[in-house]
C-alpha cells in the first residue's frame, strides 16, 4: 500500500469516526450518569432526518443542525421520562426509541417530501462545506508532513473538528468540574449524591440532555456533511458501533477517541476493499464488517482488559426501602 492510499484511508477514517465519536461521547455522558442508552442509533437517525429536512427547507445548515439537535433531545427527554421519572427499564426504552426513530423518520419524510422516505439532496448553504485550514495549500509541497496536513488534518467539515475537540472537553468536564464529579458519582452511587443534597433526577436529566445534544450533532453530521440529505436507515448501525466503542473504551473519553478511530478505520478499510488479501488468508469483507462487534465481545468477555460499567448503570434510582 502506498503513501497516498494510506493517507486516503486515514482521511476516510477521520470522516467515518466522527459520527461514532460524537455518539460514543453522548453515550459516555449518559452511561456515566447511570442511564444506559441503546437508543443512540435512534437519536442519530431522528437528528439526521430533521437536520436534512430543515436544512433543505430553509437552505441553512445551521437551522438544520438546530432542528436535528432538538429532535434528538426530544427523544432523550422521552428516554429520561421512561427511565428516570417512571423508573422503567432503560434497555427497553432504548429499543423503543430506535424503532420510533426508524419508523417516524420515514413516515414524516414520505409525508413532507414524497420521495420514498428520503429528503431531497442538499446543496450549497444547506450543507457543511469542508474547511481549508490556514497554510494547508502552501505547505502541501512539504514532503510527508505537507500532504498529511493537507489531506488528513485540513479539509474536513466543521463537525469533524468539533467532535475531536469534544474529547478533551469531555475529559475536562468529567474530571475537572463540579458537574463532572457529581455526574460520575450519580452513575456509581446515586444515594450518595442524593444524601449530599444534590438532585439525582436533575443530574440524570442533564446527562441525558447532553447525550441528546451530541447525538443530534452526530445525526446532523451524517445528513448534512458526510452525505447530502437523509435516506432511510442512514445511520446503518452506527449507534450500536458507538455503543461497542464505548464499552471498548471502558467509559473513558481518551479511550473513546482511540476506539472510535479504530472502528472508523475498520469501516474505512471495509468500504474500500471487498476482500483483504493477507497472503495466506483472505479476509472476506463480511469479516471486516463484523470485526468491531467481534472485538467488543472479546472485550466484554474480559479476555483483554475487563470493562467495568458504572456501578449504578441500568438501575433506576429508588430510595432505599
Amino acid at each position: 500500500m502506498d503513501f497516498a492510499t494510506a493517507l486516503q484511508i486515514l482521511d476516510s477514517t477521520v470522516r467515518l469516526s466522527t459520527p461514532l465519536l460524537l455518539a460514543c461521547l453522548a453515550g459516555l455522558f449518559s452511561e456515566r450518569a447511570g442511564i444506559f442508552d441503546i437508543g443512540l442509533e435512534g437519536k442519530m437517525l431522528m437528528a439526521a432526518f430533521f437536520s436534512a429536512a430543515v436544512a433543505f427547507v430553509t437552505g441553512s445548515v445551521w437551522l438544520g443542525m438546530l432542528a436535528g439537535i432538538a429532535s434528538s433531545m426530544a427523544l432523550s427527554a422521552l428516554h429520561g421520562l421512561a427511565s428516570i421519572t417512571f423508573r422503567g427499564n432503560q434497555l427497553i426504552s432504548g429499543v423503543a426509541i430506535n424503532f420510533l426513530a426508524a419508523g417516524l423518520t420515514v413516515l414524516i419524510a414520505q409525508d413532507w417530501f414524497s420521495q420514498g422516505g428520503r429528503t431531497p439532496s442538499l446543496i450549497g448553504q444547506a450543507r457543511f462545506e469542508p474547511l481549508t485550514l490556514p497554510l494547508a495549500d502552501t505547505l502541501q509541497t512539504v514532503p510527508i508532513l505537507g500532504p498529511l496536513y493537507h489531506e488528513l488534518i485540513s479539509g474536513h467539515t466543521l463537525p469533524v473538528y468539533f467532535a475531536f475537540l469534544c474529547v478533551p472537553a469531555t475529559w475536562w468536564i468529567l474530571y475537572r468540574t463540579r458537574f463532572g464529579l457529581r455526574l460520575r458519582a450519580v452513575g456509581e452511587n446515586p444515594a450518595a449524591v442524593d444524601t449530599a443534597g444534590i438532585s439525582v433526577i436533575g443530574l440524570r436529566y442533564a446527562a441525558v440532555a447532553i447525550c441528546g445534544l451530541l447525538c443530534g450533532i452526530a445525526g446532523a453530521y451524517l445528513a448534512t456533511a458526510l452525505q447530502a440529505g437523509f435516506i432511510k436507515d442512514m445511520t446503518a448501525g452506527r449507534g450500536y458501533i458507538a455503543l461497542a466503542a464505548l464499552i471498548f473504551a471502558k467509559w473513558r473519553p481518551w479511550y473513546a477517541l482511540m476506539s472510535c478511530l479504530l472502528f472508523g478505520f475498520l469501516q474505512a478499510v471495509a468500504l474500500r476493499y471487498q476482500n483483504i488479501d493477507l497472503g495466506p488468508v483472505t479476509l472476506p469483507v463480511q469479516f471486516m464488517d463484523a470485526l468491531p462487534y467481534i472485538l467488543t465481545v472479546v472485550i466484554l468477555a474480559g479476555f483483554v482488559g475487563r470493562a467495568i460499567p458504572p456501578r449504578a448503570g441500568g438501575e433506576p434510582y429508588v430510595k432505599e426501602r
Partner: protein
Amino acid sequence: MDRMPPWADALLVPLISLVLAAILSALVIIGIGEDPVAAVTLMVKGALGSTYGWGYTLYYATNFIFTGLAVAVAFHARMFNIGGEGQAMLGGLGVALVCLYLPLPHWTLALVAATLGAAIFGAAWACVPAVLQARRGSHIVITTIMFNFIAAALLNYMLVNLLRPKGAMDPATAKFPAATNLPTLHDMLTPIGLNFSKAAPANVTLVIALLACLAVWLLIWRTRLGYEIRAFGHSETAARYAGISPTRITVVAMLISGGLAGLMALNTTMGEAERLVLNSVEGAGFIGIAVALMGRSHPLGVLMAAVLFGFLYQGGAELALWTNIPRELIVVIQALVILFTGALDNMVRMPLERLFLSRRRKEG
C-alpha cells in the same frame, strides 16, 4: 395483599398501555394527513376480511409466537435476549442445510429434521452470549446485540460465497427439494372441507408454534426446570442458596430461548420462501420483544400479542399497497407498544396502584 389485584396487573395495565399506544398511533396517522378510521378499516379488511388476509396474519403471527416465546423464556430468567434476530438467522441456516443436504423423502421427516436444525443452530448462537454472561458477567444485552450483527455478516458470507447456486444473482440458496415443502393451511384445511386461500403462506408451522406455546407453559409452570428458571429470575442469591446453579440456568434458559427464536425460520424459510434468503427474519426478533412485553411473558399472552402483531403486519402491508401510508407506520406502532407496555409501564401502573389502594382504604 398485593397493591393491585392480579387481574388488574395481568390485563388492565397492558390494556390501558395498549389503548395509549393506539391513541398515539392514531395521532400519528392524522399527523401525516390520513384518516385513522379509514386506515383501520382497511387494515381490518385486509388482514381479517378474507382467508387470504388471515393466511398472512397467521403467517406473521407464527413468526412472532416463536420470537415472543424466546424473549419470554429469557425474561423469566431475568435476561433480556435482544438476540432473537441473529438466532433466527442462524436457525434459517440450520433449516437450509438440513433441507438442502439431507435426503429427506417426505415433508414430515423434513419437518422433524429441520426443527432440530433450526433449534440447534438458534440455540448455538445464543450459547456464546449465555456462557459469557454466566461465566464472565458480560452483559447479555450488549453481547446479543453484537451477535445480531455478527450473525448478519456470517449469513451474508455463507449465502454470497458458499450457498448461492452458480450463476444466481441474489444472495440466496437454491430452492429446497419439493419433498421438503410444507403443507399450507390451504392444503391442510381442504380435506376437512374448508376452503382456505391457496395464496397465503400460513402453513403447518403454525401448529408447531401452538405446540411451542403449550410446551413453554408446561416448562415454566409445571416443571422443575421452569421452577428453577423463575426462581433464578426473581433472585439469584436465593437460587444459589437452593442449589440452583446460576451458570446452568443462564445457559439453559438462553439455549431454550435461542432455540425458540431459531424455530421461526421453519415458517419463513421452509414454509414460505422454500429457500434461504438474506433477510428472511425481517425484524421479527425485535418484534418478539414487544410481543413478550405485551403478553406479560405468558404463553397465552404471547399468543394473543403475536396475533395482534400479525394483524398489524398484514394490515400494514395492505396499507402500503392501497394507500400512501408507508409500511413504517407499523414500526411506529410497534415502538409505541414497546414504549408503553415496557418502558413506561409505571406511568400506567403507579396511578392505578394508588387508585386501588385508596379504594381499599375506603372499604377497609
